[in-house]
């Protein structure tokens, strides 16, 4: 994002020329910075994005026009005016071909330069407006879900198809794949969008309170029921009730919800009468129903009643083509949120992000970018900002045996050491590489965790970062 007062960057190997330009540019009401070498220019561009760049062709031994393609790629909205003492058609053509906005010959007249800079500043403002308009109208997201891969497009189409109906929907997908976002998208695309969207995270509610939380209770219905409580099903009247992690719900509660799905009537705990409510139910789970049903974790009848339509959200590692899109989207979002200027991801960093397995899916990437934007003031996300497990390519999905409880079909049995290694990595990812927190999560001492980090060759990066 450019500063409010446009700022002009002059790149010329003669500091005397930079001084003269600066003196004039400041009189015209612009801010100005100068760089006598290409390296200085790149350093400056890491901190701030100018409105216009004045670039000399003869930069010592470097031909300034060779820098234009990279400038244009990194900062497409910034016009580059080439300044040259080689007033030839060839130089002009080369400059414009390489992406320059315009070129001006030395010695130049300052009235002409003033006109050119004003024009370029207007062009820059226009580009920013177009960018803002494009991002508002052609955002890469679908109600907050980001991805252009075929499985994601299929999910969007299914959401749009099912949204106008009142059919129950079951959303399947690993943790962090955006199940709640999909549920919200269905709600927003439905005729219920003006009504409430009530999300219930089953594992977060104590087992003994879940029935009352869902259906409500009357005052005095049980010890501690000092007030009448309106349950989530009733709160969602006229809207959508989203039940997350349904396999974590008590089997009996599932039976009551099944009844509710069939007759749309609730009876608060301790109430003498029942009440009809108009609620659409969307449920989600990160487990495989085919495994959960025989294990008595999910009622078969409840499952069939919920899965009138099933939407599967595939893990991020199965749609690597969406990682770049997501990274840029999240970067824009967080830069705007925190008032930062980070606008791009370096090619090297992007390669590393794309090579990662993202066991925590979109949520993991989201947390990582959030953290990077908060802790850095650069204009570009570079490889050195990434945590060690991404750089070293060790952020892999936990070993197969660890997912057995999720109902995943497994063929191989990993070694105990492999499992420990993976568990440590997982804990570090979940705690954003905070070693003391990870140790707590793993139930071991900090010293033991450091010892194990060393044992698995993970020590240097983590110890350096957190000790």
């Amino acid at each position, binding site marked *: 994002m450019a500063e409010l007062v446009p700022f002009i960057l002059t790149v010329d190997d*003669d500091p*005397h020329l930079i001084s*003269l330009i600066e003196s004039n540019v400041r009189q015209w009401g612009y801010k100005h910075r100068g760089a006598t070498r290409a390296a200085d220019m790149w350093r400056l561009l890491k901190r701030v994005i100018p409105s216009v760049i004045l670039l000399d062709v003869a930069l*010592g031994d470097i031909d300034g026009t060779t820098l234009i393609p990279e400038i244009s790629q990194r900062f497409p909205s910034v016009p580059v005016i080439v300044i040259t003492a080689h007033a030839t058609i060839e130089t002009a053509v080369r400059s414009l071909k390489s992406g320059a906005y315009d070129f001006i010959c*030395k010695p130049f007249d300052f009235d002409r330069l003033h006109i050119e800079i004003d024009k370029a500043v207007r062009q820059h403002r226009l580009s920013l407006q177009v960018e803002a308009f494009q991002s508002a109208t052609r955002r890469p997201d679908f109600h907050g879900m980001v991805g252009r891969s075929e499985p994601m497009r299929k999910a969007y189409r299914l959401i749009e198809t099912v949204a106008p109906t009142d059919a129950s929907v079951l959303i399947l997908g690993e943790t962090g794949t955006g199940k709640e976002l999909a549920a919200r998208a269905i709600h927003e695309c439905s005729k219920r969008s003006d009504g409430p969207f009530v999300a219930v995270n089953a594992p977060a509610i104590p087992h003994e309170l879940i029935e009352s939380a869902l259906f409500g209770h009357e005052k005095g219905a049980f010890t501690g029921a000092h007030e009448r409580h309106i349950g989530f099903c009733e709160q969602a009247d006229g809207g959508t009730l989203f039940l997350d992690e349904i396999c974590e719900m008590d089997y009996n509660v599932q039976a009551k919800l099944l009844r509710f799905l069939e007759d749309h009537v609730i009876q608060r705990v301790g109430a003498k009468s029942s009440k009809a409510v108009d609620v659409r139910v969307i449920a989600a789970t990160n487990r495989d129903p085919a495994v959960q049903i025989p294990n008595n974790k999910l009622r078969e009848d409840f499952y069939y009643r919920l899965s009138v339509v099933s939407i599967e959200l595939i893990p991020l590692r199965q749609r690597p083509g969406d990682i770049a899109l997501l990274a840029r989207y999240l970067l824009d979002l967080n830069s705007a949120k925190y008032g930062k200027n980070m606008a791009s991801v370096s090619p090297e960093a992007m390669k590393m992000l794309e090579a990662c397995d993202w066991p925590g899916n979109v949520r993991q990437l989201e947390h990582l970018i959030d953290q990077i934007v908060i802790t850095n003031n650069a204009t570009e996300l570079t490889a050195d900002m990434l945590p060690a497990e991404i750089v070293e390519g060790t952020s892999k999905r936990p070993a197969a045996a660890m997912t057995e409880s999720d109902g995943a079909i497994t063929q191989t049995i990993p070694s105990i050491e492999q499992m420990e290694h993976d568990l440590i990595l997982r804990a570090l990812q979940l705690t954003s590489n905070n070693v003391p927190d990870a140790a707590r999560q793993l139930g071991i001492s900090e010293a033991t965790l450091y010892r194990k980090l060393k044992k698995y060759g993970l020590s240097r990066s983590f110890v350096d970062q957190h000790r």
Partner: protein
Amino acid sequence: MRHDAKTPDSLVNSRTRPALADNPAWARLTAKYLTDLPRQLDSITRILELRDYKKIKTHAHRIKGTSGTYQLETISRGAERLERLADSRNPDRVGTAIKEVKRLIEMETTRLEIQTASSHGEETNRNG
């Protein structure tokens, strides 16, 4: 402003130069630049001893562009001649061109001093 090739440099320059009295920042920067130019010419002389004509061309090219933008057109044209002569790889001719640019720098420095003094005098008269 375009100029006739036969017009003496001194006259062309006096017409094209902005009124320095009206632009003190420009005058200050020009003085600073003129002070630094002899050092640049000394550097070119040393490079000539090494017969590095490519480097001489680069330096002359820079002086041509910057001095021209400062509207020191006589120096700019002198530097342009030097840049062109570097291609001849003739040390005597290049050396003569360097001396010529040095002479033009001295001339411009004197002119600037006179202009500054006269504008200072006018200012004093206006203020009574």
